[in-house]
């Protein structure tokens, strides 16, 4: 079933009776060429590109719950390519280019909306830092514009420009950034992978690895053992737990990040805004709710709920940036478990165990990375060599000193 304006119209006239399930409910076969652990955005995108770009179709995605139940269905949906360091810029720009063609590519409406991402600055020093970042982006062909106060005022007149402590001086605008509908990204990749023969197996938790002479030859699961020539882990906040099943310790700590949504209001914020004096970011969903978030909880956590003190901090930031938000009621809050790496950058690499590959350490910026992460991981699984855009995301970079520390805070995962 292909989606088109015509199919929407035809179904509108025939009582919406022509739609079929987007993917099969597959049961495990005895063995596959490639098994991907984790049916989040990255796992599904990997399967999709393996089948579509690299011709590897004997693939299973094993998901312990249902697809999209992890972080990919919990994030604040911001996509952007405003990174500064050499290892990062090409990767995130590759991802942005894939976002720009994604809906045509997988024939699914992911509601990719390039409504812009505006990072505010509140001091001269911060302005200089954004000039530097903007220049680095432009040198790599990424769009960036430095706005002064009036430039920001034209976009968001309702902000508290004269806040006594954090007056807004301007902002760095990345127009090609924006948002995408996270669930639709999951469904689009799942549907596209399934159509090319990939088995998406839900309620199937990986509980161990089958090894032969130091090499992975399959996995143990709650639905029985399954053989595989190659196994890729893409389990985000559970990376350490799954890697431990193969005896590995990772440069990763798991933390909970919360997000919040307000009651729906009329169109108000038509871009993504980040506060520069604290950690706070906000956008508006198409249903009208303001979607926002801030810092993670500072202590390691596997509980998918956040603490009240972090919530208080987020709302204080909100009030400092746009006091009118105090009139809104918050509808919901939720949390997801982030795989915080030691330098704030991800890992897409082989592991010391033969046949076992790792995709993890996404911190809280992995949604925007979904297309490129899937593409590069598929490249690695199919060819055994890193894709050039992800060549810096090595697992051994911590030992070799080639860390990619965008924020410059050192090996404190809760600060990235």
């Amino acid at each position, binding site marked *: 079933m292909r989606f088109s304006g015509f199919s929407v119209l035809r179904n509108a006239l025939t009582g919406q009776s022509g739609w079929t399930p987007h993917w099969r409910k597959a049961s495990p076969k005895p063995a596959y060429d490639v098994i991907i652990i984790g049916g989040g955005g990255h796992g599904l995108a990997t399967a999709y590109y393996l089948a579509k770009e690299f011709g590897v179709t004997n693939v299973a995605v094993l998901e312990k719950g249902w697809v999209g139940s992890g972080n990919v269905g919990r994030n604040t949906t911001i996509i952007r390519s405003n990174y500064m360091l050499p290892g990062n810029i090409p990767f995130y720009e590759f991802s942005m280019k894939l976002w720009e063609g994604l809906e045509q590519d997988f024939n699914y409406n992911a509601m990719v909306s390039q409504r812009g991402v505006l990072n505010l600055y509140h001091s001269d020093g911060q302005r200089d830092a954004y000039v530097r970042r903007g220049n680095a982006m432009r040198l790599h062909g990424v769009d960036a514009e430095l706005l002064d106060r009036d430039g920001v005022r034209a976009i968001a007149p309702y902000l508290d420009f004269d806040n006594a402590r954090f007056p807004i001086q301007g902002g760095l605008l990345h127009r090609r950034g924006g948002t995408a509908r996270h669930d639709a990204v999951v469904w689009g990749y799942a549907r596209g992978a399934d159509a090319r023969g990939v088995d998406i197996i839900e309620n199937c938790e990986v509980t161990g690895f089958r090894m032969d002479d130091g090499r992975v030859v399959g996995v143990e699961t709650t639905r029985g053992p399954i053989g595989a020539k190659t196994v890729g882990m893409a389990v985000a906040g559970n990376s*350490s*737990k799954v890697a*431990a099943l193969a005896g590995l*310790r*990772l*440069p*990763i*700590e*798991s933390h909970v990040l919360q997000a919040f949504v307000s009651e729906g209001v009329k169109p108000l914020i038509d871009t993504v805004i980040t506060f520069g004096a604290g950690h706070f970011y906000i956008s508006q969903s198409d249903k009208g709710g303001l979607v926002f978030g801030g810092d993670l909880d*500072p*202590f*390691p*956590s*596997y*509980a998918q709920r956040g*603490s009240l*003190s972090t919530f208080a901090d987020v709302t204080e930031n909100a009030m400092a940036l746009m006091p009118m938000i105090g009139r809104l009621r918050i509808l919901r809050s939720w949390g997801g478990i982030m795989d915080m790496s*030691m330098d704030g950058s991800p890992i897409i690499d082989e592991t010391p165990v033969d046949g076992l590959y790792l995709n993890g350490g996404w911190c809280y910026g992995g949604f925007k990375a979904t297309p490129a992460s899937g593409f590069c991981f598929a490249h690695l699984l199919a060819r055994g060599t890193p894709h050039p855009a992800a060549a810096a995301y090595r697992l051994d970079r*911590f*030992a070799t000193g080639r860390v990619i520390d965008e924020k410059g805070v050192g*090996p*404190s*995962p*809760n600060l990235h």
Partner: protein
Amino acid sequence: MRIPCPFCGPRDVIEFTVHGEARQRPVFEAHELDTPAAREAFVDYVYLRDNPAGLHVEHWYHGIGCQSWLLVTRDTRTHDILEVAYAAGEEEPAPAVVRTMEVAS
């Protein structure tokens, strides 16, 4: 979340700073520092973590309180705190600030 500080009693988590898994820093003589063994031990110490879903022993610092370094045993699945002790194993914290505060009150 409240942490029962052995000196101050139960206090809100915002008074504390967490400094991650409590681990023993590798010990090497100066002349051994530039050896593969030392490098491996330090890479492990600085960058690698067990990151368990379950009991986790952590360093916390009671900055807006008695300024003690604490060893907190916490369940990362439930956020329950099972045990709190002084990190250095001493009976009472030593920082001067605490004494001053006592004099002032």
